[in-house]
């Protein structure tokens, strides 16, 4: 099994403010890894570095064995990283259909499969994203990422704002994607769901990896200390 993603002591800053102080993370082909931590600890920043939405300032960040330091964000995406960003970021003036096709790349995921996963999107195909309900936008963001047919799906709080049934569907979907061999990096707050799908977890605290291990080893003591539960 090849190592799909490998972060070693990654550091990064927003201007003068350092946000990451040493993130270490491994993700193997076909693996599902959960990135966990309290608010403001650096989960999203880590993901932004992986997608090259911001440069990292130190450490190494390798994707499928390639150092991403010299790559642009579109390059990384075309190497197979499908991002569902925090806060959805659908293209507001575009219709649902346009949002889905805008960055689509050929592969098993197409319009029909996405609509099968989220029937709600089918209903709203011609509506512009700006007027979608929050949950609909979330589905759209996931669908949009799947349409790029990624090797690695990155979900940053992808179930936020979804109704419980839909959330269950999405988790079921994630499990299905996993069973099909897709690699997934996810951030979420639902411990029980994470436990049901993730292989491993990485916990960050103040911008640094403080724990990394199998999901089974995530003890109540750890979650209490680092997640406040």
């Amino acid at each position, binding site marked *: 099994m090849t190592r799909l993603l490998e972060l070693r002591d990654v550091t990064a800053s927003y201007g003068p403010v350092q946000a990451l102080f040493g993130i270490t993370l491994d993700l193997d082909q076909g693996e599902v890894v959960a990135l966990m931590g309290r608010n403001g600890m650096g989960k999203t920043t880590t993901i932004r570095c992986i997608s090259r939405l911001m440069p990292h300032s130190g450490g190494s960040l390798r994707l499928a064995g390639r150092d991403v330091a010299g790559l*642009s*964000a*579109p390059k990384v995406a075309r190497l197979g990283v499908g*991002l569902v960003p925090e806060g959805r970021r659908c293209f507001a003036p*575009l219709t649902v259909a346009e949002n889905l*096709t*805008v960055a689509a790349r050929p592969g098993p995921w197409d319009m029909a499969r996405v609509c099968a996963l989220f029937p709600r999107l089918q209903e709203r195909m011609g509506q512009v994203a700006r007027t979608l309900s929050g949950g609909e936008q979330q589905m759209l963001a996931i669908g949009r990422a799947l349409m790029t047919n990624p090797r690695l799906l990155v979900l940053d709080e992808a179930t936020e704002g979804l109704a419980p049934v839909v959330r269950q569907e999405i988790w079921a979907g994630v499990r299905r994607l996993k069973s099909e061999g897709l690699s997934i990096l996810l951030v979420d707050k639902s411990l029980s769901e994470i436990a049901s799908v993730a292989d491993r977890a990485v916990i960050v605290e103040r911008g640094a990896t403080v724990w990394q291990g199998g999901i089974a080893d995530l003890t109540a003591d750890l979650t209490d200390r680092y997640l406040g539960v």
Partner: protein
Amino acid sequence: MLLAEQALNGLQYGMMLFLMAAGLTLVFGVMGLINLAHGSLYMTGAFACAAVAAATGSFWLGLVASLAAAAAAGALVEIAVIRRLYARDHLDQVLATFALILVFSEGTRWLFGSFPLYLKLPGSLSGAVVLPGGLHYPLFRLVIIGFGAAVALGLWWLITRTRLGIRIRAGEADREMIGALGVDIARLYTIVFALGAALAGLAGALVGTIQSVQVGMGEPVLILAFVVVVIGGIGSIKGAFIGALLVGMTDTLGKALLPGLLSRVLDASSANTVGASLASVLIYVLMAVVLILRPQGLFGARA
């Protein structure tokens, strides 16, 4: 009869305005970039056409040159300047493109001298034709109507029906995100900006042919083009098209009819001056009224 001819003139002027505004619609309406140097690209096209037509004797080669020169200038400007400003405030774009106006104007004067250039219609397009109804109408003005309609259709198709168009609009909505999805938006924007510039250059060559080719010719065009785009609603090709026709009609008919109307209440001479004054602000009145009633323009989605 006169009224019919004036209505045709209004239509024709509207088409001419649309041609002038087409590049701006693309760059400003769709990419969301405030490009004050639009008029400079228009001027570049006109000068390139005049220079090449003078050197080769062929208007058509000149037309090709206008497209090429403006597109090249556009691409250069995008890569050297505009590209660094997408992430910035709109206001930085205003300052940068204002600076570009100065550079273009004086650069052109340096290259071509201070005097207006000669550019004339090819024989095949000059002269008047007789329309049904016995109206004599310059052929070239009909050609401009044709060009305007073709550009409108082409743009509309490009923006709404092609993936390139969808990507441009997505890029305008969230540039970072479209990049994160694997679309090389930087290259795309260079292409679109160059295309917008080429359209401006084409308009400059076509319209310059029956107007004057001189430094500063782009400035009134800039304002008019903005008026057209804004009345129609930013981002809408259809809006720009209808806005252009509306402005063309208002302006032409206003000039033709106002002095006559006023002469019923004023003496002839002051009716003429007052009428002309009113006519000259009419399009601004139109714009203000449209925007006050519909703050997002006639066909604009965004406020």
